[in-house]
């Protein structure tokens, strides 16, 4: 187990290093930072001085080492447009994104698992076919377009829900959250549902296929022979057995929810990290772009690591296979 964990952590560190190098090359080496950082009217001597001051005359690997050294201490530069440390700016926006993503995940689980169970128990019923057809649409519909249509229906025509912003926030342990008051909830509803749609379809399909397989197993037949009510068979026996893959997928998909929040936040003007990224790209605020990407990469590496470790604890076969490989 110790060997497995060490290896896995080492792999994560290497992944982080590779990604940071790629980001460094992509953002700092392809474009010329000087063009952005100093006044275009500056003369040659001034450009040379600024280049030396910023360390841009050093060889590439020295620059990368400096970048890494600063990154480790949490210093990823200052935002040009907001004049504050890029990392701080992102951490300020993070709660909004995490709240949105958690809420979307909740929608996906609360709706997706029961619908998947229903579709898996009676795969040939008309309602199961409707659910599956719906999930194909959930996969095919581009998220951003669904968001627009939701705004059109619920905000413009029906006038039920507000279309932009986060609404009134309440402090919870010093973090502003929207879900504790009605105004915040009405603002949260549409973006969360929009973001949930894709994961909802995924969970429906996953639960359905798991249930279909589980229903054919001997333990289900035995439980039925014992005369247990269907509710108990499905709710206890089947659900327990299909939970492992579902939990894994939920864990892994959480990272992608945060990434896809970029689109949803832009549509609903939700003041999270994703909207910050798009705004920064539009004004070429490179330190913020780099900081966002590095933080997201860390987040992904950590999520993948945690899911892998949890999985190996739940399922010893994984551990053995990894140790042998």
């Amino acid at each position, binding site marked *: 187990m110790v060997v497995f964990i060490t290896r896995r952590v080492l792999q994560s560190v290497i*992944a982080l290093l*590779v*990604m940071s190098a790629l*980001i460094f090359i*992509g*953002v700092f080496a*392809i*474009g010329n930072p000087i063009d952005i950082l100093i006044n275009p009217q500056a003369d040659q001597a001034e450009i040379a001085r600024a280049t030396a001051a910023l360390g841009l005359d050093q060889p590439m690997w020295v620059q990368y080492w400096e970048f890494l050294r600063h990154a480790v201490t949490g210093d990823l530069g200052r935002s040009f447009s907001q004049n504050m440390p890029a990392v701080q700016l992102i951490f300020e926006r993070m709660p909004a994104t995490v709240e949105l993503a958690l809420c979307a995940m909740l929608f996906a689980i609360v709706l997706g698992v029961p619908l998947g169970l229903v579709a898996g128990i009676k795969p040939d019923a008309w309602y199961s076919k409707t659910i599956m057809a719906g999930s*194909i*649409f959930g*996969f*095919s*519909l*581009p*998220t*951003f*377009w669904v968001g*627009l*249509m939701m*705004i*059109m229906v619920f*905000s*413009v*025509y029906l006038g039920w829900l507000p*279309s932009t912003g986060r609404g009134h926030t309440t402090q919870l342990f010093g973090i502003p959250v929207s879900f504790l008051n009605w105004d915040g909830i009405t603002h949260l509803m549409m973006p969360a549902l929009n973001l949930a749609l894709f994961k909802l379809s995924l969970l429906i399909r996953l639960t359905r296929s798991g249930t279909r397989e589980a229903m054919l197993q001997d333990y289900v037949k035995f439980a039925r022979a014992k005369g247990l009510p269907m509710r108990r068979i499905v709710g206890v026996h089947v659900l327990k057995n299909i939970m492992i893959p579902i939990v894994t997928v939920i864990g892994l998909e959480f*990272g*992608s929810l945060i*990434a*896809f929040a*970029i*689109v949803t936040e*832009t*549509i609903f003007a939700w003041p999270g990290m994703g909207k910050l*990224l*798009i705004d920064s*790209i*539009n004004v070429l605020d490179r330190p913020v*772009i780099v900081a966002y*990407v590095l933080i*997201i*990469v860390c987040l*992904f590496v950590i999520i*993948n690591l945690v899911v892998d470790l949890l999985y190996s604890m739940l399922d010893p076969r994984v551990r053995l296979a990894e140790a042998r490989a």
Partner: protein
Amino acid sequence: MSNRGVETPFRRVAADFAESRLAVAGLVTLILILIVAIGAPLVSPQNPYDLATLDIMDSKLPPGGQSLDGMTFWLGSDDQGRDMLSAIFYGLRISLGVGTLATVCALAIGLTVGLIAAWFGGWVEAVIMRLVDLQLSFPSILIALVLLASLGQGVDKIVIALITVQWAYYARTVRGAALVERNKEYIEAATSLALPTSRILFNHLLPNVLPPLIVIATVQVAHAIALEATLSFLGLGMPITSPSLGLLIANGFTHLMSGKYWISLYPGIALLATIVSINLVGDQLRDVLNPRLQK
């Protein structure tokens, strides 16, 4: 063909494919969309990008509205007085073109890299596959966004971004299929004949790993189109001079709040029809080409 009744592989696939009415409907829709997209200049009522034909007096007409000179805008017009139906036909052309081009290039790269990984093994394989794993652990939209943020805008850049996002899927699939195939007798026979490696790879191995690739490529075209539309909507994709469906939808977003729904709605439906029909065809192809499901 004169050999009627003889079961060629193509005929078997076609017959199996036709078993699902939904998939056939998808295929028919897809063919119609392709015809409209390729023949956009011929079937459009108006050339939406010829400024001489546009009249600002016709702007934001609702669907079915008439222009001053008697032309009917079946799907309404946008803020420039552009016929939406024509704009959608031209937009389909750009979306499908970019999606297909990116998929074909990514397929070629992924195929070559995957075959090399499977054939040579060792550290070559290890490096390639770690790279693939690393890339696939991040959502495609994130990779594309970061790339476009550092490369800038343009048709060529979005194609590069779409290729970068896709190649890893093909590389992984090809390697998986090729690892199974390389231990079979026909490869052994080819090797003992001392054929050149490139010939074994591309003439013997390649045709046998194609079926799963065709399936993935079909579905990936849909992915590429959706991703391009999303990026364009975010303002990072296609330049304003080549308005894809995503850009049309983004343009309509600004008028949505005033109730002018048609500028966003219809391009969205065109996008949806394209993606759904490609997915339906892809799903059925997967079943037809999967040897495990064969009766």
